[in-house]
């Protein structure tokens, strides 16, 4: 009886918290498909705002995904071997390098952006291209990839596995492909999930780095909030959701599968 009460209490509280977080989201989404938000849902349901946003901002949306996956590619290609190197080598130098990689976590995105602008702003072609934003996103997301991969390395004693493979004759590259990457997969997937999500949602840094021709989803979102009617901005939110949620679910499923192995 008492257990029941406690359970009911906990369930109630959880639902309340969930509602607190979810209701604004639902309201926002519903606004995106309402003909006139101020008159309420009675005014009718429409996809015209969504269509309008798509028409206006599909460039931004495409660019966002391009940048997100490019960022993922760079963090994978650079981050995974870096994590391996740092873990296997160990010692003080590795610690220092790890700290440096982690630094962007503690520095506001605006400051990173400013630093990038000061340093590379003069290279016109580079400054104008989406690669400039890619660099910002890579700096910002790299620690998440490196950290989550290193966490797995520490938990599966990758160094001994590596030595085991070496004792059987495998060259460093073969070891990396056969032993390191497969056993780090849960961390790599978790890291990838973070990188994609962070890149798609990144605003601070991107807002500083963007040009009128290189805008991402969140920057466009801010744009539409500032200059469009509320229904359009909400429709934008809806599109953002539709894009990112399946991605999150898919990668979460991957991560679960990786952990079970």
């Amino acid at each position, binding site marked *: 009886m008492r257990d029941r009460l406690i359970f009911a209490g906990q369930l109630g509280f959880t639902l309340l918290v969930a509602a607190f977080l979810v209701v604004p989201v639902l309201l926002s989404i519903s606004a995106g498909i309402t003909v006139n938000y101020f008159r309420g849902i009675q005014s009718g349901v429409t996809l015209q705002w969504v269509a309008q946003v798509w028409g206006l901002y599909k460039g931004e949306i495409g660019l966002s995904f391009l940048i997100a996956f490019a960022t993922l590619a760079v963090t994978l290609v650079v981050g995974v071997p870096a994590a391996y190197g740092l873990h296997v080598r160990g010692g003080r130098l590795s610690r220092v390098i790890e700290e440096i990689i982690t630094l962007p976590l503690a520095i506001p995105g605006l400051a990173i952006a400013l630093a990038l602008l000061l340093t590379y702003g003069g290279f016109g072609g580079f400054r104008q291209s989406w690669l400039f934003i890619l660099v910002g996103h890579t700096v910002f997301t790299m620690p998440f990839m490196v950290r989550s991969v290193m966490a797995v390395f520490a938990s599966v004693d990758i160094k001994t596995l590596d030595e085991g493979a070496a*004792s059987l004759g495998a060259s460093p590259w073969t070891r990396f492909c056969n032993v390191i990457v497969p056993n780090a997969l849960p961390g790599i997937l978790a890291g990838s999930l973070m990188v994609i999500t962070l890149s798609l949602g990144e605003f601070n840094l991107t807002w500083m780095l963007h040009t009128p021709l290189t805008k991402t989803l969140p920057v466009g979102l801010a744009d539409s909030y500032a200059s469009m009617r509320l229904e359009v901005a909400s429709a934008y939110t809806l599109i953002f959701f539709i894009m990112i949620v399946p991605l999150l679910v898919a990668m979460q499923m991957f991560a679960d599968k990786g952990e079970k*192995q």
Partner: protein
Amino acid sequence: MNAITGHGAAVHIIDCGKTFPDGTQALAPASLDIIAGETLVLLGPSGCGKTTMLRIIAGLETPDAGGRILFDDTDVTAIPIEQRHVGMVFQSYALFPNMTVAENIGYGLKIRGVGKADRAARIAEMVALTNIGGLENRRIDQLSGGQRQRVALARAVAVRPRVLLLDEPLTALDASLRDRLRSELNRLLRSLGITAIYVTHDQAEAMELGDRIVVMRKGAIAQIGTPRDVYFQPQNRFVAEFVGAANIVEGPIAQGRLSLPGGWLALSDAADAAAAVAMIRPETIGLVAEGGASLCGTVESVSFIGDRQRVIVTGAASKPLTIDAPNGINVEIGQRVGLSVASAAVRVLPKED
């Protein structure tokens, strides 16, 4: 050249020391020759540098400048582990969680480009040799500790390494399993005729497996010898006490006799000394009647261990003596007893400071 032919190599360790970057001297420069085909055990307490020595031989650690490692006549000091053609069994086994048992065993063969059919044959051979039939398609996390140990061994041996290196392979197992696997391992090493270097801190393991034992202490070699040498003729007090149980007695030596508080012991040829240290193994002391015995004492305690009884006798030497007596004889606490020790069983140790 057939990639899987191999043979036991002789290993020569020449002046190999190891100082880690943080300044720890794990190993003082030492030289050691390992005969092709023998099982050499590195024995010593925790932190004495056994693993470091093994890792230097494997190529996982480079010796300090001046140190060299030779396999037969080839200098391998600068050759990385993957080209040394060694087999290694790690304390934690280091089996690949992303592969099945069979894939683990076949990994080294695959790396060496052995064809699928040959590989399968060799895997089957290893599975039979290490008694793990039926487990081939299991994942590593579905194995017991003992099974993992066997897979690790099968994987290391499958490539016919020139030298097999084992770092405390049985330490992670419980006692009864350890005993069983120890004799299994012993048979396997003998039948393979492989050069094996085996690290342990367990002296019983060292005795059973080793053709020769290297007793190590604080990064240096304390003694090298056959199990019998090391047990009966320890060269110093550390070896005497670390390998097996030992009574250490002290007293002056004159005219071939070691004088003790409770009498004297006859020695087989020993120089006179004002203060000498000698070792006597507990099982070499016989309990006899007090009358006529050259050394006497009082029984302080008797513990029945099953196959023998452990008797502690005070008054004979300055410290209580431990005696392993047959389980049939009747001794009581407080009883006066005579002690008989063959002169050959008293080992006078060099003086140390």
